[in-house]
C-alpha cells in the first residue's frame, strides 16, 4: 500500500474494511490486557540483562570516567589496570577505526574522550575483564592526568562574552525565533504588563532498568548488538560510522525495555558503539551495562531552564503581547537539545491567541551532564512559565484564572502564533467544562487560598496546554510494520517501534486484531530487529499510536483484503460480505456458509496468496520559516488540562496533593487501559517534577545525588492523591483510528496546575521548580 497514501483517507478505508461504527469496535477503545503483561509480572527473562545468560564468553566492560567537569587530558596510563588478573584489555579513542565523534544532531561529542572532557563523569576509556568486579577494580587503576579548566555551571554565566568556551564555536549552539506583529505596540495597548523569570531544574528519567548494550561479533565481520535502544536505526548508523563498516553488517536487536522516557535515545546509541568497538578489539562478545549511579551521571538529563517572560493584557482580559527569552541549558554536549529548543519555541506562548509575539530561545553549553530528550521534550518548562504568567495576569486583572484562559484560548479555525490554521477539532472548551465541574472549581477557588487555621493552607490551581504531535521538522517521519499470518493461523507482528512499557505496541496489537478479525492472543510481538524491519525512526514524540499505527493499519488491511478474497471464493459471497471473527469466518448474509480461520489460512497458503505485508507510513514534512517562526510545525496538537487541589503545611513547607482532575483531547482512544495508565503515571511523574526531583551539582560540577536514595522520585505513598479524568475523544482523521498523541501530553498539565495551586495557597509567585519545602517557607515569608 502506498507510503504516501493520505492518512485521512486511510481512516475512511478502515471504516470501509471493518464495515462498522467505532462504537461497535471489538477491541479498539476498550481495555484489553497487554500482550506481555503476564510475562512482565511473572518476571520472565525478557529484558536486556536477561540475554546475558545465552551469550557465552562475555567480556564485561566498565567505563573510566572523568573526575573533572572541565579539563584538558594530558595523558591516560592504564598499565596498572592491565596487570590485574582477569583483565582482557583497555579501549580508548585510539582504537576507533572510523569516525570518533557522535551526537544526535551535531557530532560535537567524542565517543571516548580525545583531549578534553566537558562534564564530570565523561567517558574516557573502557576496561574489559572476565568479571564485572574485576573490570570495576581495574577501571579504578587507570590513571588520567588532567589540566583543569574553569567550570561553568550556570547558563547565564555561559552566555556572557568573557565566559570560558566549552566548545570552540562558542557556548550558544542554537537560537530560534518567533516574530509576529509588533510587541511594543502590543504592550503599549496593554492595561496590565507582567514580567517574571522562571527556573526549572534538571530531571532524571529514573527508569527501573538502566541502559546497556551487549555486542556479539560475528564470523563475517558483522556485529549483532542487543540493546535497550529507543532509536535502534540511529544506533546502527553510529556503529557503522565508528567501526567503519556498512550498515548491512550491523544488526541492532531491541528486547523489552524497562522504561525509556527519552533517556534511552542517544546514550544507548553510544553504548552500542562502545560495546561494538570493544567486541571488535577483543574478538569476543562485550557487555556494557550502566549501574544506577552511572546511569544518573552518564545519560542525558532534562534541560534546566531560565525563562524570562513579559505578558501584556487589556482589562477585558485579552492578551495583547508576549515577549520571551528562553534559555535551555544543554549541558556539555548538544545531543537533541536543539530539537528540544525548537519544540519549546513552537509551544512557547501556549494554546492562546496572541496577536503580537517576540520569542528568542537559546540552547547553551555548560559543564553539567549533557541534556537530551525527556517526556515533553522542552514543552513542560514553557508550560510552567506561561501558565504561571497567565495566573499572575488574571490575578492583576481581578479575573478568575479559568475565565481568563477561556477568553484567550484557541478554538477550531483559529490561527496559532505561527500562522497555522487549526483545521481540526480543538477540545479545549470541553476540557475546561469538564474540569470546572469535576473539581468544584469556583467554590474551592473562593474557599481556599491565603488564611486558614491549624497550620494548613489549601490551594487550587488550573492549567491547560498543548502538544504538537510527532516529530515536526526534526526529521523525516516514517514507520514500518510487518505483519505475517503463519500457516496455523497465528499472527506474527514485527514492529519498527520498540516496547518500553508504555503500552504502545499493545495499541498496534489491538489494531491488527480489529482489522484482521482475530483475537489479540493470536498475535505474537517480536523484538525490534534492524535486519528484518525497515528504518522506522525513534520511538519518541508519542508517535507510536498516531503515526506508527497507520503503518500497522496498512499492513493489516492488505492482509485482510487477501484473506477476505479467498474466503469470498470458498464461501460464495462478496468480499465485503465476509465476517471474520476468528476462529469463525462466515458470510454476513448467510451465516451457514462458514469456514474455520485455520482452514482458511491453510487454503490461502495452498493458493500461493502472500500471507505477509509490510505497512509503511510517511508523514509529510512540516514547514517552518526560521526567521519569523511561521509555518505548520505539527500535523495536529493534543490538548490537555488539569486542576490540582493541594494543601500546604505552613510550618514545614511540605505540599500534599489531595486531588487531581484532568482532561485530555487525544483524539479517539485506542488502547484504553494503556491511555488511563499513561495519564495516572504521568500524574505521578509530574508530582515528582513539581515537588521533589532535581539533579544537584557541587561547585566542582559533580552530581551530588547519584542514586535513588538521594535523587527522589515519588513512591506509592506519594501517589495517594485521588485522581479523576476524562478523555475528550474528538477524532483526528490523520491519526490511526482517529487517535492523537497521548504519552507526553499525559504528563503536561499536572505540574503546572500544582504550581498554580501552591501559588494560590501561599499567595506568592511560584517561580521555580521543584517546589521544595524550603522554597515554600521562603514564599510564605517564614524563612529568609
Amino acid at each position, binding site marked *: 500500500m502506498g507510503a504516501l497514501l493520505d492518512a485521512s483517507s486511510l481512516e475512511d478505508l478502515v471504516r470501509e474494511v471493518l464495515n462498522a461504527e467505532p462504537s461497535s469496535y471489538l477491541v479498539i477503545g476498550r481495555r484489553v490486557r497487554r500482550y506481555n503483561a503476564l510475562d512482565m509480572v511473572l518476571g520472565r527473562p525478557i529484558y536486556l540483562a536477561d540475554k546475558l545468560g545465552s551469550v557465552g564468553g562475555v567480556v564485561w566492560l566498565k567505563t573510566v570516567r572523568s573526575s573533572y567537569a572541565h579539563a584538558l587530558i594530558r595523558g591516560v596510563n592504564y598499565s596498572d589496570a592491565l596487570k590485574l588478573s582477569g583483565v582482557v584489555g583497555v579501549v580508548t579513542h585510539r582504537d576507533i577505526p572510523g569516525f570518533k565523534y557522535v551526537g544526535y544532531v551535531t557530532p560535537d561529542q567524542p565517543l571516548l574522550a580525545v583531549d578534553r572532557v566537558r562534564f564530570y563523569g565523561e567517558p574516557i576509556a573502557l576496561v574489559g575483564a572476565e568479571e564485572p*568486579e574485576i573490570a570495576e577494580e581495574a577501571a579504578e587503576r587507570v590513571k588520567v592526568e588532567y589540566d583543569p579548566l574553569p567550570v561553568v555551571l550556570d547558563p547565564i554565566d555561559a552566555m556572557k562574552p568573557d565566559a570560558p568556551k566549552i566548545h570552540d564555536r562558542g557556548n550558544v549552539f542554537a537560537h530560534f525565533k518567533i516574530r509576529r506583529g509588533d510587541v511594543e505596540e502590543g504592550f503599549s495597548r496593554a492595561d496590565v504588563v507582567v514580567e517574571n523569570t522562571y527556573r526549572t531544574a534538571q530531571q532524571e528519567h529514573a527508569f527501573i532498568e538502566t541502559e546497556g548494550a551487549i555486542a556479539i561479533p560475528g564470523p563475517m565481520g558483522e556485529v549483532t548488538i542487543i540493546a535497550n535502544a529507543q532509536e535502534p536505526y540511529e544506533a546502527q548508523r553510529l556503529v557503522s560510522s565508528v567501526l567503519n563498516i556498512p550498515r548491512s553488517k550491523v544488526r541492532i536487536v531491541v528486547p523489552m525495555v524497562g522504561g525509556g522516557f527519552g533517556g534511552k535515545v542517544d546514550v544507548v546509541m553510544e553504548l552500542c558503539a562502545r560495546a561494538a568497538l570493544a567486541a571488535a578489539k577483543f574478538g569476543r562478545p562485550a557487555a556494557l551495562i550502566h549501574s544506577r549511579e552511572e546511569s544518573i551521571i552518564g545519560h542525558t538529563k532534562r534541560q534546566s531552564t531560565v525563562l524570562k517572560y513579559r505578558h501584556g493584557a487589556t482589562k477585558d482580559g485579552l492578551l495583547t503581547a508576549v515577549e520571551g527569552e528562553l534559555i535551555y541549558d544543554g549541558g556539555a554536549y548538544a545531543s537533541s537539545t536543539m530539537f528540544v529548543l525548537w519544540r519549546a519555541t513552537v509551544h512557547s506562548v501556549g494554546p492562546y491567541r496572541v496577536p503580537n509575539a517576540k520569542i528568542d530561545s537559546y540552547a547553551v553549553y555548560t559543564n553539567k551532564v549533557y541534556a537530551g530528550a525527556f517526556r515533553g521534550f522542552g514543552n513542560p518548562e514553557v508550560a510552567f512559565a506561561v501558565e504561571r504568567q497567565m495566573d499572575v495576569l488574571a490575578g492583576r486583572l481581578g479575573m478568575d484564572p479559568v475565565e481568563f484562559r477561556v477568553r484567550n484560548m484557541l478554538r477550531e479555525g483559529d490561527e496559532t502564533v505561527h500562522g497555522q490554521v487549526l483545521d481540526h477539532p480543538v477540545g479545549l472548551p470541553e476540557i475546561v467544562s469538564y474540569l470546572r465541574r469535576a473539581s468544584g472549581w469556583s467554590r474551592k477557588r473562593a474557599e481556599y487560598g491565603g488564611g486558614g487555621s491549624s497550620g494548613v493552607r489549601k490551594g487550587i490551581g488550573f492549567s491547560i496546554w498543548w502538544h504538537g504531535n510527532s516529530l515536526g521538522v526534526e526529521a523525516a517521519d516514517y514507520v514500518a510494520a510487518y505483519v505475517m499470518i503463519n500457516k496455523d493461523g497465528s499472527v506474527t507482528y514485527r514492529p519498527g517501534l520498540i516496547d518500553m512499557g508504555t503500552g504502545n505496541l499493545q495499541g498496534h496489537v489491538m489494531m491488527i486484531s480489529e482489522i484482521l478479525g482475530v483475537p489479540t492472543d493470536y498475535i505474537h510481538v517480536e523484538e525490534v530487529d534492524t535486519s528484518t524491519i525497515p528504518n522506522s525512526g525513534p520511538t519518541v514524540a508519542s508517535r507510536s499510536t498516531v503515526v506508527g499505527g497507520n503503518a500497522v493499519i496498512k499492513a493489516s488491511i492488505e492482509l485482510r483484503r487477501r484473506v477476505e478474497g479467498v474466503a469470498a471464493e470458498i464461501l460464495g459471497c462478496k468480499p465485503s460480505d465476509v465476517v471474520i471473527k476468528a476462529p469463525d469466518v462466515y458470510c454476513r448474509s448467510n451465516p451457514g456458509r462458514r469456514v474455520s480461520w485455520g482452514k482458511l489460512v491453510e487454503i490461502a497458503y495452498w493458493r500461493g496468496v502472500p500471507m505477509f505485508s509490510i505497512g509503511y507510513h510517511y508523514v509529510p514534512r512540516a514547514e517552518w520559516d526560521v526567521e519569523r517562526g511561521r509555518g505548520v510545525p505539527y500535523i495536529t496538537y493534543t490538548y490537555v488540562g488539569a486542576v490540582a487541589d493541594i494543601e500546604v503545611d505552613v510550618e*514545614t*513547607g511540605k505540599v500534599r496533593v489531595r486531588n487531581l482532575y484532568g482532561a485530555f483531547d487525544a483524539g479517539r482512544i485506542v488502547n484504553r487501559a494503556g491511555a488511563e495508565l499513561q495519564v495516572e503515571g504521568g500524574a505521578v511523574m509530574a508530582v515528582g517534577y513539581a515537588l521533589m526531583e532535581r539533579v544537584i551539582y557541587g561547585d566542582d560540577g559533580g552530581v551530588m545525588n547519584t542514586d535513588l*536514595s538521594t535523587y527522589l522520585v*515519588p*513512591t506509592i*505513598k*506519594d501517589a495517594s492523591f485521588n485522581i479523576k479524568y476524562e478523555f475528550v475523544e474528538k477524532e483526528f482523521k490523520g491519526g490511526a483510528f482517529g487517535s492523537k498523541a497521548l504519552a507526553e501530553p499525559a504528563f503536561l498539565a499536572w505540574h503546572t496546575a500544582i504550581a498554580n495551586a501552591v501559588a494560590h495557597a501561599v499567595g506568592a509567585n511560584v517561580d521555580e521548580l521543584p517546589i521544595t*519545602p524550603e522554597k515554600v*517557607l521562603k514564599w510564605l515569608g517564614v524563612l529568609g
Partner: protein
Amino acid sequence: MLFDIYIPRDLVDASEFLYRNAPDAVPIAGGTDLIPMIRDGKLRPKYLVDLSGLKGRLSYVSIDSGVVRVGALTTINALGASALTGMEAFLGFRDLYKTFGNAAVRSLATVGGNVGTAVSAADLIVMFNALDAKVGLSGVNGSRYVGIRELVAGKRLLAKEPGELITEVVFNVPPKNSSTAFIKLGYREGTIIGLTSVAALVTVRDGVIEDVKLAFDRVDRRVPGRAYLTEKGLKGVPLRDEAVGEVINEHLPREMRRKSDYRASGAYRLHVSKVLARRAVLTAGRRAVGGGLGA
C-alpha cells in the same frame, strides 16, 4: 567488592572470628546498610560474619518487671509485631515503623544493625536516646552494658572493642501517664531518609508536663542526641500548643547547631526541628493521658 563469608557456630565463635580478623571482618545481619556501603566502595571488608544463624538466640522482645529487652537480631517487622505495639507508653514505636525504610527493608533490618550504623539517620538510635536505653555487648573479654549515647560516639563510630557484638537493647517501661511519639520529616512520604527526626517521651500529671525526654537525629554532634536545655525548660509547662511552642522556640536554638548541605539549609533544619519537637511533645503528651495513637 569481593569478600568471603564466615558462618559462626555461635555468638562466642562469631566474636572470636571478628576479634582475630579485625579490622577486615564485619558482622552482617539484614545487610540493609552494610551492602550499600560495600557497593559504594566505602567499606571493603575481606570477611562478612553472617549472624543469621544466631537469630534463635538473639531475636526476642521481652517485657518483665518494668524492663524491656530487645534482642539485636529482632527485625523491625518483628519489633512491630511484638507486645510493644500494644502498650500505650510505646505508641511512638508505631510512628517509627511507619516511616522506617519500606516494607522490604523492615523485613530485613535489625535493631542491632540499626544501632550499629551509628548515623543520625538511624531512627532507632533517636528513639533509644529518648528512652535512655542501654546496649548489651558481648566480646572475647565477656559481656557488658553501655549507654546508647556513649556507644554511638560519632558518625559511623562505635565505642566498642574489636570482636564485640551488640546483643540486645534494654530500656525501662516509663512511669504511668507516659507515652512516646516519633516524627521524621523527608522530602517525600515513602522510603524517607529524614531531613530531621525527633523522638519524645512525655510524662503528664494534671495537664502539665511532669517529665520529658527529647531526642533528635542531631543536636550538636553528627549523631543523635538529647536536647537537655529544652527538656529542662519544658518541665512544669502545661500541655498546650502555645505554651510548649514558646518554650521550644526559646530553648532549642540555644543548644542545637544545624549544618547546611546540598539537601537542606541549617536554618530550615533548625526551624523544622522546633516544629516537629512541639508536635511530638504534644502528641506524646496526649497519648499519655489516654488519647490513643491518633492524639
